[in-house]
């Protein structure tokens, strides 16, 4: 059913269609509308057989989800930013225990300085936690990915995090096609847990594992995660057939078949990038784009395949590893390590800064002309930075920093 709807509410509707049995709620912008909507649905009875638990922290939110999942209840929560970091120990734990929790991450910057607006730093902070991380480009994709996420998580007994750009998607109202309940019921069958706490068939879950087996535990986790690279396309195809929309697979190539310059990105910025690609194609630049929908596990083979024509790759990222550089860029570079391809990192949109098409266009043109530096901060206010560095030279404690920066 087509509806003009806020992203958060669409996600809440999609989650409700998947019949979660325990929903844990702790408010944090910009995900709050999702759990508010789910809470209302449970309270009014629209979502039945569901426990809506107002928890005392994000740590509790993930922990309640862990407990519920361990007794075979389909468990869901949503968080963002600081909240994700507050629950990070439990995030790792859910994955380690193999519990198929689904969580929406409304991507937001991490403080200090405190900042409620969108970037991908939060998601990057848990990329090694053992969760499948899916990034939505649009609200339609966010809806579709949530339906896929429950089936995927339960198929593999791996938790799934659906990453949605905070405010940009969560708070934007656009037309979304919400699938019918009977369709979703078919796509997301009742939860059949791999393991369940049952007094009549008791087990001990959560043993302490020492050096003698820890590596094997991790190795097996890696195998299971890699298995997702096969399952996701299967589920995406199946879902696409059911609701007659393009599949939400591992990656989204856009005009990249023969492109020598390919822009790689995740999330909603892809829309802007595609516009710029169209614009530059019209001027004769041989450019394409590649959206990464599945960041973890990282679809190395698919990425290599889609980038085979590229001699230059620009990774537009809403996060970076301070002291090194782009995070996704590192993965892309790894995927291309045996090829002669130049990989650039464009850090953009940090803390909610708008990413203008004009800015991207200029950078891509530079890239096509071979003048783009290895790492660029899009729309950096250089005058401001200069002024600040200048001020630092008078401050004894900052002097060395200012000097070094200038030397570079």
């Amino acid at each position, binding site marked *: 059913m087509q509806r003009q709807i806020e992203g958060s509410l669409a996600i809440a509707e999609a989650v409700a269609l998947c019949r979660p049995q325990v929903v844990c709620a702790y408010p944090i912008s910009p995900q709050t509308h999702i759990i508010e909507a789910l809470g209302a649905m449970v309270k009014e009875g629209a979502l039945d057989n569901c426990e809506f638990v107002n928890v005392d922290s994000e740590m509790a939110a993930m922990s309640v989800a862990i407990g519920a999942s361990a007794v075979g209840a389909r468990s869901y929560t949503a968080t963002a930013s600081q909240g994700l970091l507050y629950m990070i120990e439990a995030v790792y734990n859910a994955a*380690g*225990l*193999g519990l198929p929790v689904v969580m929406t991450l409304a991507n937001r910057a991490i403080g200090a300085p405190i900042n409620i607006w969108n970037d991908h730093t939060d998601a990057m902070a848990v990329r090694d936690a053992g969760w499948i991380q899916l990034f939505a480009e649009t609200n339609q994709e966010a809806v579709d990915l949530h339906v896929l996420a429950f089936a995927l998580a339960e198929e593999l*007994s791996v938790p799934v995090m659906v990453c949605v750009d905070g405010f940009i998607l969560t708070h934007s109202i656009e037309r979304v096609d919400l699938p019918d309940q009977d369709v979703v019921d078919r796509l997301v069958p009742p939860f059949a847990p*791999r*393991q*369940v706490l049952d007094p009549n*068939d*008791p*087990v*001990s*879950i*959560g*043993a302490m*594992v020492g050096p003698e*087996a820890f590596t*094997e*535990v991790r190795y*097996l986790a890696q195998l299971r995660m890699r298995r997702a690279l096969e399952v996701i396309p299967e589920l995406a195809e199946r879902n696409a057939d059911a609701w007659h929309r393009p599949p939400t697979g591992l990656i989204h190539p856009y005009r990249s078949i023969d492109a020598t310059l390919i822009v790689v990105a995740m999330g909603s910025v892809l829309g802007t990038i595609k516009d710029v690609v169209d614009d530059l194609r019209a001027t004769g630049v041989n450019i394409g784009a590649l959206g990464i929908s599945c960041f973890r596990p990282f679809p190395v083979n698919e990425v290599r395949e889609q980038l085979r024509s590229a001699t230059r790759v620009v990774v537009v990222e809403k996060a970076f590893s301070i002291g090194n550089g782009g995070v996704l860029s590192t993965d892309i570079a790894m995927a291309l390590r045996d090829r002669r391809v130049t990989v650039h990192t464009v850090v953009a949109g940090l803390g909610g800064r708008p990413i203008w098409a004009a800015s991207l266009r200029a950078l891509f043109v530079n890239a096509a002309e071979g003048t783009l530096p290895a790492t660029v901060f899009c729309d950096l206010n250089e005058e401001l930075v200069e002024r600040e560095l200048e001020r630092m030279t008078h401050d004894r404690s900052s002097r060395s920093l200012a000097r070094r920066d200038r030397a570079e």
Partner: protein
Amino acid sequence: MTTPFAITLGVGSSLANKTGSWRVERPVYVDRHPPCNNACPAGEATQGWLYQAEEGNYEAAWRLIMASNPLPAIMGRACFHPCESACNRVQIDEAVGINAVERFLGDRAIDEGWTVPVSAPPSGKRVLVVGSGPAGLAAAYHLVLLGHEVVVYEAAPQCGGMLRYGIPQYRLPRAVVDAEIDRIAAMGVRFEVERRVENVADAMQRGAFDAAFVGIGAQRGKHPDIPSGDAAKVLDAVSMLHGVEEGALPALGRRVVIYGGGDTAMDAARTAQRLGAAETILVYRRTRDQMPAHDEEVCDAALEGVQMRWLSTVSRADGGRLLIETMVLNDQGLAEGTGHFEELEADSLVLALGQDTDLTLFDGDVAVDTTRGVVHVDDHQMTGHAGLFCGGDAAAGPSAERTVTAAVGDGARAAAAIDAWLAGVTLAPTVIPPLASADRLNPWYYADASRTLRPRLEAARRRSNFDEVVGGLTAEDALFEARRCMSCGNCFECDNCYGVCPDNAVIKLGPGQRYEFNLDYCKGCGICATECPCGAIDMVPEHH
């Protein structure tokens, strides 16, 4: 369910980890000798029969008593219960009322008509028992149980010895004495009364007895040399009590002085009160603390109106008056005369200064050592004359006491020895485990419960009759009292070790079977031993 590798484990799989290898000490169950058993001159397995009584198994309890003592109803009244003096429960509140429970069991046996079957095959041996007091009765009972033919010669017209002629009826009703003697007679012991043995060797020979036990008691009151005028009425307590039993009531007058401080003095004083004496005054040369009489008796005598004069001796008796010398304790705690005299009016003077045994039946038998007026016996109650045994008040053997209970113990011990001697075997020495001392107990576990007192006849109702003063316990009270037993030193299956082991290393074997340690898992922490209420677990070094 296919569980994830390593993170999820099947229940109870730690049984594969044998933590017993950590142990440096191991627990062992022990059985210790309970202080009550240890103190019983009659050799009763007191704790054992209390255990049965705790469950209400009164007949089983009674049969356990009967394994050593054939006179529970009598002993439940006449015994001065050294078991209670030794009882560890004193450390918690008060001693267990063992004597009261024994009496309850003895009375119940009489009411129910319980008997002890003789199952031993006839041995073909004949044993003579001289005297039917507690020693003789005990010997006869055990001997007949062992299959021997037993004949008891009793000089008096009725059986019982001091039970009948010494202990007043208000302490020991005669129906009880009759019932317990009748039960022994019914087992096949032949009692011949008014049959005084002049010479025991002759009697053995004439009756073709293979062995003999002499338990003739100490029936002759001591008469120290007190200067007396012709008109003075002086008699001894033994004769007086004997006379009362035979209906020959002595004319004591209104004011009676009893001279002595033992239990017999108390019996005489309390009897005098019941015979109508207006005033009964007990004169004793030392202090109350030094009186050999049992405290309970002294208290009862005082309650019944007997007056006491400590540190006093009778120097002279004349008609109607006594000359009393005041004594003082010297540095060694001995009484010495002060030279200060006073007169005391008295219609009669009853001497209760000890008893002697009539040893004439051993005359001419040089093998029997009777120096200092008692028969000397070995650890098995045998005199120097092989096959001739002696016990009770007449003998100076293993038990130093002169009580009914010691006499029963002598009789039982002698019976076992006679049996062995007749069979030509040597008795194996009894191995007694170390004492279950109070310091081994964990008293916290015992519920607080003060002892149940037996009902007692009011003092005012004791004056003119010989009604029994001390009543028996009800079944409920007896059960309560039995359950106050702490089972010192012997497992009573309280499950504490089973429960307190942090490693589940105690195996419960089922009712009556106790427990065993599972040394595969026992880490040797010792909690079981510390927390064993009765001290029945020891920790011993482990030698891996």
